């Protein structure tokens, strides 16, 4: 008779069983973190609309400015020739000693704002805006924005470094590697990958969870592999520092030297001989012809020195951004003294050879810099599927062991299961709660508070910590129900809170054509309705039977308190 292999222990059983062991444990221990990374990363796809919703004063100003000025500017703005001359004159008068000047003369149509940037004495980037009609400097906004906020960037930062800098980057990198391990071992473990390809059988307890876990993972597998791999590759130089250390030296200095060699090849050294910056227009015209793009920025290294160098950078138009995987724009570099061309880069090309181009494309693939709104939505849906993959996997682990105690942790098994159940609630429902709580924080934290953005972040982490505490204090079915109820309430009442605090509301957004704000609220509402549906199912579901250590025949009946369908993703 075939002896049944024990389900735990990597060395036991055949190859497939070893892979199953690897999948279970590498998946489980990282699933909570990966769910958080995936859900926030998915929201990060729409960083800009979220920031837009979170800065209502700013878009009120935008609307007011557009109304005040009207479609036509109140007076003719300067030509490219004038704009360049004004920018140069301002820099020569105000910041003659800066080591770098950067002029943004106009938009792609030769109109719009005129901005100048420079590196100040501390080596920091500074900026000023000039009037495009007169060339006069516009008064600086002296006060910081009233509703200081991290905006949608919170989700971007959290999903790759957890707001913890380098340490966070390493933690997320290791989790991403674990995800690749779980994906590959999961495919090997999945015996009926083709037979079950389109299969989802709802209402069948554990089987439904397995079906859901398999379906969302297998059907979006190319995306999941790509996003984990490119995520690691984006920070590859941090994770694999040996190359830079060998050629440029270890530590911060080495990294800086590498960045300089990569981004500023052939940057001249200051000669000490004074020389005025030449007329920029002829160089700009030549640059535009060489790269085939209108000028976006003119960068002058060592202005006022004979060794100065002038770079002309182009605007990417909407079509080329849509159609190119590599997001770079064109560039032409000239010597200020002789006007000779030193370097030219065509739009989409990358300095530094094929490896740099590969890096740029992998980065573009991860951050979906191409393809416009349609591709962003494709990424968003696939990202939600990825989050559902983590969530269903973690829940499946518990559901499987509800009926059948597997005793992996000896006498501590029951306690560890309890820990895992609590972590599931806090990681899945709790994080979703924290995400929408972050949006509540944006409307509730008093305006003008010092470090207001940090307070909003405090709301996010505070709610998450409370959810964790709650998940451990309450029995797990009750914890699920209560956190989902809280999620539903926060989601459904967010538009009301918004109306109460800013006066903005969904019908107005739609009438004004403000689809970014409207879409944020519609998605939050949809998440709220989904949370209500899951909550109802949980209330109706029978209470779990007490767990027995002996093997219980799996009768296929729903013996768990979880809903049998895929839990739709909550969160903002």
């Amino acid at each position, binding site marked *: 008779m075939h002896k049944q292999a024990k389900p735990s222990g990597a060395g036991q059983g055949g190859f497939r069983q070893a892979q199953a062991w690897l999948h279970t444990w590498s998946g489980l221990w990282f699933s909570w973190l990966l769910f958080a990374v995936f859900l926030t990363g998915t929201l990060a796809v729409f960083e800009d609309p979220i920031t837009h919703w979170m800065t209502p004063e700013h878009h009120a100003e935008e609307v007011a400015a557009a109304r005040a000025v009207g479609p036509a500017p109140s007076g003719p703005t300067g030509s490219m020739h004038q704009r360049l001359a004004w920018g140069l004159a301002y820099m020569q008068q105000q910041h003659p000693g800066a080591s770098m000047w950067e002029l943004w003369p106009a938009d792609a149509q030769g109109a719009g704002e005129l901005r100048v940037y420079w590196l100040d004495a501390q080596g920091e980037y500074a900026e000023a805006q000039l009037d495009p009609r007169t060339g006069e400097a516009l008064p600086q906004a002296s006060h910081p924005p009233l509703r200081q906020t991290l905006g949608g960037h919170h989700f971007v930062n959290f999903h790759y470094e957890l707001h913890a800098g380098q340490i966070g980057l390493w933690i997320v990198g290791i989790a991403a590697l674990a995800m690749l391990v779980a994906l590959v071992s999961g495919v090997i473990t999945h015996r009926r990958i083709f037979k079950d*390809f389109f*299969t989802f059988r709802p209402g069948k307890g554990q089987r439904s969870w397995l079906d859901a876990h398999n379906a969302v993972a297998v059907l979006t597998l190319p*995306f999941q592999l790509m996003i984990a791999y490119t995520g690691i590759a984006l920070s590859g130089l941090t994770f694999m520092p040996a190359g830079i250390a060998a050629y440029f030296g270890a530590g911060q200095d080495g990294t800086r030297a590498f960045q300089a060699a990569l981004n500023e090849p052939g940057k001249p050294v200051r000669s000490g001989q004074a020389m005025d910056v030449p007329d920029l227009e002829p160089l700009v015209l030549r640059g535009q012809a060489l790269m085939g793009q209108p000028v976006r920025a003119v960068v002058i290294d060592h202005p006022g020195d004979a060794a100065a160098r002038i770079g002309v950078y182009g605007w990417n138009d909407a079509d080329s951004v849509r*159609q190119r995987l590599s997001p770079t724009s064109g560039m032409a570099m000239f010597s200020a003294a002789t006007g000779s061309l030193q370097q030219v880069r065509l739009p989409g090309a990358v300095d530094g050879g094929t490896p740099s181009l590969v890096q740029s494309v992998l980065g573009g693939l991860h951050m979906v810099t191409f*393809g416009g709104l349609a*591709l962003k939505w*494709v990424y968003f849906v*696939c990202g939600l*599927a990825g989050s559902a993959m983590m969530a269903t996997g973690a829940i499946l682990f518990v559901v499987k062991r509800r009926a059948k105690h597997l005793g992996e942790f000896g006498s501590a098994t029951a306690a560890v299961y309890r820990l895992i159940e609590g972590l599931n609630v806090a990681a899945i429902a709790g994080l979703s709660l924290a995400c929408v709580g972050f949006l509540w924080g944006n409307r509730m934290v008093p305006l003008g508070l010092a470090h207001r953005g940090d307070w909003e972040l405090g709301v996010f982490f505070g709610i998450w910590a409370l959810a964790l505490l709650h998940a451990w204090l309450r029995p797990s079915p009750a914890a699920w129900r209560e956190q989902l109820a809280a999620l539903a309430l926060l989601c459904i009442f967010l538009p009301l809170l918004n109306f109460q605090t800013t006066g903005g509301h969904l019908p107005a957004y739609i009438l004004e054509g403000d689809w970014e704000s409207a879409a944020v609220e519609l998605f939050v509402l949809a998440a709220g309705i989904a949370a209500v549906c899951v909550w109802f199912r949980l209330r109706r579901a029978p209470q779990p039977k007490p767990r027995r250590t002996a093997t219980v025949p799996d009768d296929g009946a729903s013996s768990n308190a979880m809903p049998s369908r895929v839990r739709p993703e909550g969160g903002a």
Partner: protein
Amino acid sequence: MNMLQASLLAWLLSLGGMVALAFAMDRHYTPWTGRDDIPPALRVLLRGVGVLLLAGVWVPSVWGWSATVGTVAAIGFWSLGALLAAGGMSWSPRWTARAGAVAALLGVSGCVLPLLLALRW
């Protein structure tokens, strides 16, 4: 072809293709028709149509974006079509079959009609 049209066509073709592939399997054929085994000829037909439709997703994708971005988009739309097909079949095989057929028809005509018009003129 603008992005919205391209996305819509790619998504329709992908849904049609994935539904065809699904119903070529015994497990999904039975709930659809009530019969036990799929006739071999029908299986081959459904598989062939499914593969062609899925390959066809590439056409509007490359039209709407470019060869590189379009390829990424096509893989993404395969996933969206497959998720919808799997979800639909767990809900109602009959309606999923109808929706798949309509999607395939609309998707193919949306790609072919502009070509025919272009050839005529």
